[in-house]
């Protein structure tokens, strides 16, 4: 898995709804493709994504083979207070990539 890129506002007013954008480099091999000898290329994708704010899960996604290369996920959330937004991606091989951004209120 490559380095994740996330776009999170640095500050917000309490109760603001903000847009979060995330992107991570990954081939997302769907398991449907064949190599030039006609053998199926085994599936290797990021199968799970989650965003957690101060320990409470905001949203999570189970991804399947139909999600494009370099999976992009965008969502909106309410910011109740100053806190850390933690992102997590899980690969089929068990590798976990994490990153955290702080949102300041006030």
């Amino acid at each position, binding site marked *: 898995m490559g380095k994740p890129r996330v776009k999170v506002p640095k500050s917000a007013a309490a109760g603001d709804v903000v847009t979060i954008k995330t992107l991570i480099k990954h081939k997302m091999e769907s398991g449907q493709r064949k190599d030039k000898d006609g053998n199926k290329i085994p599936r290797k994708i990021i199968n799970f994504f989650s965003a957690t704010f101060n320990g409470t899960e905001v949203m999570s996604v189970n991804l399947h083979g139909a999600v*494009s290369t370099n*999976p992009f996920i965008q969502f*909106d959330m309410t910011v109740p207070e100053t806190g850390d937004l933690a992102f997590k991606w899980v690969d089929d091989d068990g590798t976990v990539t994490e990153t955290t951004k702080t949102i300041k209120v006030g």
Partner: protein
Amino acid sequence: MNISRRKALAFGGAALTVTLVPVSFAQAASEDVMKAAIAAFTGGADVAEGGIELTTPEIAENGNTVPVAVSSPGAKRIILLASGNPNPNVADFAFGALAAGNGSTRIRLAGTQDVVAIAEMADGSFTQVAKAVKVTIGGCGG
């Protein structure tokens, strides 16, 4: 050897039918697979319409990366399904209290087909929306 044009065309046509039929069977999810995927999410409950919005391009030039956005304020979970893909499941979103009940991503579509989104609302009811997307170049490889 002397092959008439008519014979050559007939032979070519036959060969084409033979090769095309199994390919189309293998690639698209059958209706049963799609129904099973929906039932796995809803548990067989009735699915209403409305209260959920799905934004897709009408025509996607490249089926490898089709932007889709789904929004259903108050939803607990939303699944995205592609009816014409070998495996109809695309992504399953789950929302906590802070989430606005929306999500966008980019997906692969094997060909022109309906993209379906089904939301489970906080009261346990289900609602769905479907959008047709025309795909010029399929996104599942060969």
